[in-house]
């Protein structure tokens, strides 16, 4: 008799745990069930992301770089699964290489974005790049894997935690990514992945007062985009709009805060 295989139950990834949607709802992609994140799941994920941010940002930049590199390693070992969940081997290559590119950034960000400032007085004055906090990401629908990682990797590299909404198209890729994240020594809550149609959940995320920035790389229709920006305005939440697969220092710069410190010089 043939052995009956063990079928994986797809779950949301919140606070370092794999959980079902509190709503109990699922949706199907190519015959597989995926959890359909509810508004409550979004709020739970933001709540988990706040301590996740504290843990992640407290690590040294060197350490964060190594964790991101480990994420690339964990993705590499899942190449076959990833290929099936996206546009193919070339997209998998680009996605993993993107993570490696950002893994080299954490300990260089302040060197490139910060400054020592020559003020007209006896003061030490410097500007450093610090993480923003919790970043909400409405992931691009396409390309599913590369889009997810192109938006998530810079957010993490800059020291932020993330709540990612992966729509129906990127749900299979998000599931594999969650397993890689869970085995990368990333602190619980630093990255949270929710699957399901983003129409309603994106609004909850945009209006949430405990997110610091909102990434809208996704090519949503203009009306929807305008509504999400309006909702984000309620908390003076920073809104980032870039290409789905951009790889740049400008992307990192969009997810940091600049802090300037003064101290007198005197003998």
């Amino acid at each position, binding site marked *: 008799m043939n052995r009956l295989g063990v079928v994986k139950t797809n779950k949301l990834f919140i606070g370092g745990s794999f959980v079902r949607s509190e709503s109990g709802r699922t949706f199907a992609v190519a015959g597989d069930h995926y959890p359909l994140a509810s508004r409550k799941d979004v709020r739970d994920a933001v709540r988990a992301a706040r301590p996740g941010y504290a843990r992640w940002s407290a690590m040294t930049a060197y350490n964060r770089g190594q964790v991101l590199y480990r994420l690339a390693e964990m993705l590499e070992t899942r190449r076959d699964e990833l290929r099936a969940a996206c546009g193919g081997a070339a997209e998998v290559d680009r996605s993993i290489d993107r993570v490696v590119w950002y893994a080299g950034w954490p300990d260089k960000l302040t060197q490139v974005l910060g400054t020592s400032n020559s003020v007209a007085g006896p003061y030490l004055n410097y500007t450093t790049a610090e993480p923003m906090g919790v970043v909400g990401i409405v992931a691009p629908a396409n390309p599913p894997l590369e889009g997810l990682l192109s938006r998530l990797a810079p957010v993490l590299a800059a020291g932020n935690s993330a709540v990612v909404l992966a729509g129906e198209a990127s749900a299979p890729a998000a599931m594999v990514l969650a397993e890689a994240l869970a085995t990368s020594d990333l602190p619980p809550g630093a990255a949270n992945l929710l699957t399901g149609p983003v129409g309603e959940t994106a609004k909850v995320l945009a209006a949430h007062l405990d997110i610091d920035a909102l990434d809208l790389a996704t090519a949503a229709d203009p009306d929807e985009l305008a509504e999400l920006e309006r909702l984000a305005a309620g908390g003076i939440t920073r809104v980032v709009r870039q290409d789905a697969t951009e790889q740049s220092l400008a992307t990192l710069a969009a997810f940091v805060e600049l802090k300037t*410190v003064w101290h007198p010089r005197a003998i």
Partner: protein
Amino acid sequence: MATGGAAGWEYAPAPEARDVVRIRPRYELWIDGAWSAPEAGDYFPTLDPSSEQELALVACAGRADIDRAVGAARAAFQRGWASDHGRRASYLFRIARILQTRAREFAVLESIDAGKPIRESRDVDVPLAAAHFFYYAGWADKLEYAFPYGAPAPHGVAAQIIPWNFPLLMLAWKIAPALAAGNTVVLKPAETTPLTALLFCEVAREAGLPNGVVNILTGGGDTGAELVRHPDIDKVAFTGSTEVGRDIARAVAGTGTHLTLELGGKAANIVFDDAALDQAVEGIINGIYFNQGHVCCAGSRLLVQESIEERLIAKLTERMRRLRVGDPLDKNTDVGAINSRAQLERITDYVRYGIEDGAEIFQPECALPAHGYFHAPTMFTGVSPSDRIAREEIFGPVLAVLSFRTAEEAIAMANNTRYGLSAGVWTEKGSRALAVAQALRAGVIWINTFNKFDPSSPFGGYRESGFGREGGRQGLEPYLQLT
């Protein structure tokens, strides 16, 4: 008349001469390098807040005027303002020099129109405004060295709205980087403090600035609301309240207009038990009573370690008795006039909330002038973190004192706000100062000093204090597209 509370601290009046400025009875709009009457024919008065006397009538810009100003700015941009970097630098250097030459005139006019002490407008506002133009003049032909992540190009036409607390300085913070980056601007000064911006138009003319590069539209909130909604604006920069900033963010949502906001604050000024107390006292006084507390980064929440609270409060009350409140043009004055009747009412409301919430009030005995808008320096002790005076921006000379035991508690209290513009730390222990500075969620941290500003030093907020930086290399970024 300036009065000192304690015996032996009386000063004879030392008023700065007013005759250095000539205020016209009526001001028009500055559009395309010329004075231009508002099409609807509306004017509003601007007052001297220290006497409530009307100073002049000022044009109120409406939709048609905004159209003309934005059109002039667009045309100036298209005539190649952005292309000749060296020339742009030259104009900005000239403006800096003219501001320095006419510094006395600007300082007196600022104190008359805004109510701020002449000592501050003379020593802080005007020199810093000139320094900002000088600093950004140098960037205009060096933009390609500023950013490692893209080739710089200006946005186009910038709409800029500034507040009434530092009228000329905020104009400089807005116009200097915008022009250095190659944009042209339409700037709206605050309703209660338009005069130095209007005098600046003369500086622009004297510097030979091409027509349309800088347009100044006076008006109230409606003018500003109309301006940021104009379809031909590429970039909006606003400094003011979080409430209005939110409205502007909603207004430009989905339009692709670039936006930076510098909004309110409720800064914590944290004093540890090992702080140099006399220096801290000066920093606390400067932090909250500088410019009558009309400062978005004012140190309005004093967090003091329990073990030194009594000693610090004793020193503070003694120091407050030495503050001279009165005529803004008197060179001895420390605390001038509150900017407007509306602001004075807001401050007195908050003082009432403080008393109602059970905090203990201290105000030095000082004779306030019979006319004009004045408020005594005020300190509340025994404040709870949940009290309104500890949570909301008052924008006046009102200090809320809270106490803490551990550094962790101080950091948690300091960060327990929707704002994040600035904070202060007072300690003689270097490692603690740096650790606390890192843990504070605010854009500017002053260690063993407070309320220091410099054109080379980026300034701006975290969270609901807004986004974007002004000052420094980083202050160019909001006015550039990097491709």
